[in-house]
């Protein structure tokens, strides 16, 4: 897995900024919404005075906020841990620092390849590449390649599948 010292390629560092934005939006909105909701509940009803335990509910936004702050420190390392490698037989995708995952997709197994780009991703020139195999699942979703690199990779993936099969047929 990580001990192999394989020459993994890294994704664009712009992904760090993008992930920070996702983080801020993904946690910020729920934190603000729940805080406002609870404060309004506190001001308009006597729910909290009759059930003092209910003050524990404020742990929800606080917990979310702490998670968000933790993620601020994790994200750069997470992005650095993302890597991909075009092996002879398969594409290796690697992710995660604490929870490590590595997927090996044989080239001949690729059903189709999607390159996706949302508005934020477009602003940062980053794409998400989704490789679909008959095995289903999202095991091979990979974010962070610039558009040209993603297209190169896609062409490479589909081409290699053919070449490898031709090699096998010849042997």
């Amino acid at each position, binding site marked *: 897995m990580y001990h192999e010292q394989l020459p993994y390629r890294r994704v664009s560092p712009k992904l760090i900024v993008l992930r920070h934005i996702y983080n801020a939006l993904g946690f910020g909105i729920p934190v603000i919404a729940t805080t406002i909701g609870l404060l309004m509940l506190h001001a308009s009803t006597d729910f909290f005075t009759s059930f003092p335990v209910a003050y524990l509910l404020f742990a929800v936004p606080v917990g979310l906020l702490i998670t968000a702050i933790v993620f601020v420190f994790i994200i750069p390392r997470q992005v650095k841990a993302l890597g991909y490698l075009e092996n002879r037989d398969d594409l290796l995708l690697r992710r995660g620092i604490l929870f490590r995952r*590595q*997927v090996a997709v*044989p080239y001949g*197994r690729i059903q189709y390849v999607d390159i996706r780009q949302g508005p934020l991703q477009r602003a940062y020139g980053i794409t998400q590449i989704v490789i679909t195999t008959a095995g289903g699942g999202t095991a091979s979703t990979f974010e962070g390649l610039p558009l040209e690199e993603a297209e190169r990779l896609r062409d490479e993936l589909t081409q290699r599948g053919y070449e490898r099969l031709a090699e096998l047929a010849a042997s």
Partner: protein
Amino acid sequence: MKAFPADLEFHPVSPKLTTYRQLVNVISLVCFVTGFTVAAVIFNAQVDPGFWHGLSYIPAVWTLLYDLGVMIVTPYQVRVHGWAEQSDDLLIRSGAVFRKYEAVPYGRLQFVELSQGPLQRKFDLANVTITTAGSTATIHGVPTRQATRLRDDLTQRGYALLAGL
């Protein structure tokens, strides 16, 4: 399954898997039992006395018994768990009480996934998940180096025997 051929040699998974699993079991037992107990105590403090005071402890007791059962079975499970590389397929054995054998043809493999949590890393264990177009099969607790070797082996054999889809 007595009818199963006895001459098949299964490659055992790492014996450290037992330690790792027992540790996870203990952590989950402590967390859930305390959690459920605290919840029951808070619940009882809030409501009037009655027979439901006793009932509120059911989740905690159930989790305790269940986890203890799992802890008894775990060593057997790990001893049984293993894989055998045959000429055309990978055979996986699991289950202490309810035995299970899975055969995954190399030529059917869609992708291989290795995964490792922080605690698993301390014990140098990895999970190897093989996905086919129909389902998946997982070998738990393979030493990391062996797991990567198995992955390379599987994809290579997969190519040699590549079948449609």
